[in-house]
């Protein structure tokens, strides 16, 4: 078990800087997820920690020891790759024991550890098969087995679920969570899928363009996004963003005026963006729980029934808003329905910088 510390990490390929200064402390036994859109540098950061790439500047510490010049094999890490990267010409058992064999571990010890990992992951019956004879989910479990067998201080996962179909993905995601609860090894997990990030992480590190946008628990990122980018990235469907103007003590929306909530700062030009999650847009009887000023009527444009709930797109004042309607009954397109903004769940962003300036941000400070 070990902590991982990144200090001022930078990485450039030729003249293109991919990682632009990252500072991060990952505690022992923690499960941290790096999430962000394609090209944000999350996989590169993981490869830097693994030692598969050299840092251009900064220090990487594993268990308090600087490992910048340490070879991957001496960093005591194990990595699960996106493509699983199983050796096609070896059986499952040999794949799992390959690292130990390279380290000249006695055969009896290799067999014992491979057996234990196989039992943990339900792979006993597959040990003599080759990767080509396994399904995607089984290959993924073998890749995890190979990592477990080495008993590393840190697990690194590089988008391990992205090649699985949706159903299998949920199952393997649960397996990974169970595995972490069982072995409690410090884990760093890279994904572009915010659902994976939310469900797995103790803490999420949201990256964009080689920089950290926000670090926090999944609930912190969901409820108190530091800026518009985080707000839009975390949560599905995405947060509604409505352009607005602060006028004296009112927020002017294209179709209504709201009392201004407490703000950390006021943009000089008064231009803001109001954010509201689809779940916090109330409809029907629920609207009566909020003051009159927050209620309005909107026209239903699109209805996407999903069984237990429906996703709606409604239009008001030329603005499309997404909302979620629980239950099996839903309106028809063209109908007008009563809606309301939940005042406790409003997010306010500076329209120019995108930084959160709303009440939640104040309470965080």
């Amino acid at each position, binding site marked *: 078990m070990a902590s991982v510390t990144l200090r001022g990490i930078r990485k450039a390929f030729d003249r293109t800087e991919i990682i632009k200064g990252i500072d991060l402390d990952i505690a022992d036994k923690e499960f941290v997820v790096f999430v962000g859109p394609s090209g944000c540098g999350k996989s590169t950061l993981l*490869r830097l920690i693994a030692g*598969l790439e050299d840092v251009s500047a900064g220090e990487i510490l594993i268990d308090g020891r600087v490992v910048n010049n340490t070879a991957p094999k001496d960093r005591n890490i194990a990595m699960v790759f996106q493509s*699983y990267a199983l050796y*096609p010409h070896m059986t499952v058992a040999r794949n799992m024991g390959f690292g130990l064999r390279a380290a000249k571990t006695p055969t009896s010890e290799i067999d014992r550890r491979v057996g234990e990992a196989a039992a943990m992951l339900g792979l006993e019956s597959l040990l003599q098969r080759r990767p080509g004879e396994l399904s995607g989910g089984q290959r993924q479990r073998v890749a995890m087995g*190979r990592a477990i067998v080495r008993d590393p201080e840190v697990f690194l996962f590089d988008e391990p679920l992205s090649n699985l179909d949706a159903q299998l993905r949920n199952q393997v995601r649960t397996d990974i969570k169970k595995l972490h609860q069982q072995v409690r090894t410090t884990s760093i997990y890279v994904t572009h899928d915010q659902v994976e990030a939310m469900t797995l992480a103790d803490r999420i590190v949201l990256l964009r363009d080689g920089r950290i946008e926000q670090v926090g628990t999944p609930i912190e990122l969901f409820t108190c996004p530091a800026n518009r980018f985080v707000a839009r990235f975390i949560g599905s469907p995405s947060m509604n963003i409505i352009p607005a103007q602060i006028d004296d003590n009112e927020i002017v929306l294209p179709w209504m005026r709201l009392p201004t909530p407490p703000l950390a700062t006021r943009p000089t030009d008064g231009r803001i963006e109001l954010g509201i999650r689809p779940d916090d847009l109330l409809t029907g009887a629920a609207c009566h729980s909020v003051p009159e000023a927050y209620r309005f009527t909107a026209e239903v444009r699109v209805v996407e029934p999903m069984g237990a709930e429906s996703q709606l797109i409604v239009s008001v004042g030329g603005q499309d808003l997404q909302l979620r309607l629980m239950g099996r009954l839903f309106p028809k397109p063209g109908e007008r329905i009563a809606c309301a903004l939940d005042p406790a769940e409003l997010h306010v962003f500076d329209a120019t910088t995108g930084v959160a300036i709303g009440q939640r941000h104040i309470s965080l400070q």
Partner: protein
Amino acid sequence: MKIVRPGRVIGFTLLALGGIVMIMPLLFMLVTSLKSNSEIYELHVLPREPTLGNYIEILTHSHFARWFLVSFVVAAVSTVSVLFFDSLIGYTLAKFRFRGSGVVFVAILSTLMIPTEMLVIPWYVMAKSMGWLDSIWGIMFPGMMTGFGVFLMRQFFAGVPDELLDAARIDGLGEFEIFWKVALPLVTPALSALAIFAFLGNWTAFLWPLIVTTSPNLYTVPVGLASLSGEFQTDWEMIMTGSSIATIPTLLVFILLQRNIVNGITLSGLKG
């Protein structure tokens, strides 16, 4: 009723004709080797009195066994050398980025455009200055690495996913071990093809062994058989017998390795 497509019929007919054209000289060679000296200029196809006398004669009363040995050593050593060095260079060019790697690759590729006939003089000068004339080493040194092999192996290694090599790095292997234990087993089809090319090329090489050797006990099979063809008399039955024997190793190499090319291990440990 089964429908016979005319395209298929034409295709198979052409293939059959091609096959016959290929196999006829081989059969003629084999048949002639079984004829006695008095029969070889007669036009009938099958020998009237088939005899193994030519085989006994060539194996006991000539240098043939020696030539066979020399040829085998040259072809085997060159093939092993080509497989090792060409794949090592190909791997390096495919998987490592270093200053000038592109230039090195183009330089190696450009050697493919130079015909052997142009190279024998520099080779000869080199062999002479190194004292390699009329020696086994002299025969085989030019064939120990080939530009074609480097090119072939580089292309195959380029298809080996980098993630596999990274996985091996994390598993604790050194760079040479990664090449040897992870990358090389994945390109066995290419290695088999290259082995066939290298063995055939060296086994049938004629011009360079002819130039570099002078002692009859250092001749390779092609050079030795050519020496049986004299100004006034040619031992056709001996040449055909020697050629028949010389075909055996190439056939064996082909039969042993062709299955590998067809059933090569696919990269199925990856997503799929």
